[in-house]
């Protein structure tokens, strides 16, 4: 039987829990029939199938087209009113859980992505011979998430070729060596601004995202003091109506 690969993007991937599957299908199966098979396997996809775009080998395919053996079929939602390109994914996450670097990479990778730059901060155990046992992170969650969204928008405005953007901040007790934060920027090519965008993202996060850390060592604990004092100029321009 012909074998095909199905690739899921963005919200579809969250439903299926996997970025890609390989399927055996009867010869002569159409795109429409393949979608029915996917629905049987992942019933939760049904409400997401409205307005979905299907491509075979990066060419848009209609439901009555026959799926050739060995085909790569991609499923995604187009940008509203735009052409058949998947909307660039944005991952904003404030979490007590361990940061899963591979999952973040998958969630911001699109068919057009060819370069992803990761910055991650980790808990330093030794600073000028001073020992840190662990850091205790605290956040103002609603505002932190709003400001992380704002940074993603600022990145896209400055580096229009940057596609997927992820900003993750971990909170709670974090021990030496643990990743505490992650900024990842995806783009078609490595010279499309992803390096600069990731650096901007972490610098900005340290300026305006309301998160604080307390350093705990052998001699007690102390809040780490920030230096930046944001003003209304750090707010996004108000939307024009």
């Amino acid at each position: 039987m012909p074998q095909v690969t199905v690739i899921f993007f963005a919200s579809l991937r969250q439903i299926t829990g996997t970025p890609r599957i390989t399927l055996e299908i009867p010869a002569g199966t159409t795109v429409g029939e393949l979608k029915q098979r996917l629905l049987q396997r992942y019933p939760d996809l049904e409400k997401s199938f409205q307005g979905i775009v299907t491509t075979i080998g990066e060419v848009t395919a209609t439901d009555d087209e026959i799926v050739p053996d060995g085909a790569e079929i991609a499923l995604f939602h187009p940008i509203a009113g735009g052409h058949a390109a998947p909307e660039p994914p944005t991952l904003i996450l404030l979490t007590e859980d361990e940061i899963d670097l591979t999952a973040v990479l998958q969630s911001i990778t699109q068919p057009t992505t060819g370069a992803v730059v990761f910055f991650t901060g980790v808990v330093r155990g030794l600073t000028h011979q001073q020992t840190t046992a662990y850091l205790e992170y605290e956040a103002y969650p609603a505002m932190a998430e709003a400001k992380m969204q704002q940074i993603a928008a600022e990145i896209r405005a400055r580096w229009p070729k940057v596609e997927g953007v992820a900003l993750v901040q971990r909170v709670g007790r974090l021990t030496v060596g643990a990743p505490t934060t992650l900024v990842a920027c995806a783009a078609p090519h490595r010279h499309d601004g992803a390096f600069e965008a990731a650096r901007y993202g972490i610098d900005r996060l340290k300026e305006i995202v309301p998160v604080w850390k307390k350093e705990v060592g052998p001699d007690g604990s102390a809040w780490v003091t920030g230096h930046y004092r944001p003003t209304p100029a750090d707010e996004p321009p108000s939307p024009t109506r």
Partner: protein
Amino acid sequence: MTMAPYRVLLFATLRDLANTATATVELPPAATVGQLRAALVQKYPALADYMPAAIVAVNHAFTTDDTPLTPDDEIAAFPPVSGG
């Protein structure tokens, strides 16, 4: 002049020093962030050294001392951020 209660969320050093996560202060009508800072220090003297550098956010937006307040606003006061 009727005073109205304003709730202020405190974080990190400010919460530890005030010994509460939610401060309440009374402010006159048409109060500003500047007046809120003064009222916080008056009610929680332990904040005195930290309030000049503290950031006051209103409805998740950064402010100046002239920013007006209403009792329905979500107001927060915190030290300069140190995440990442």
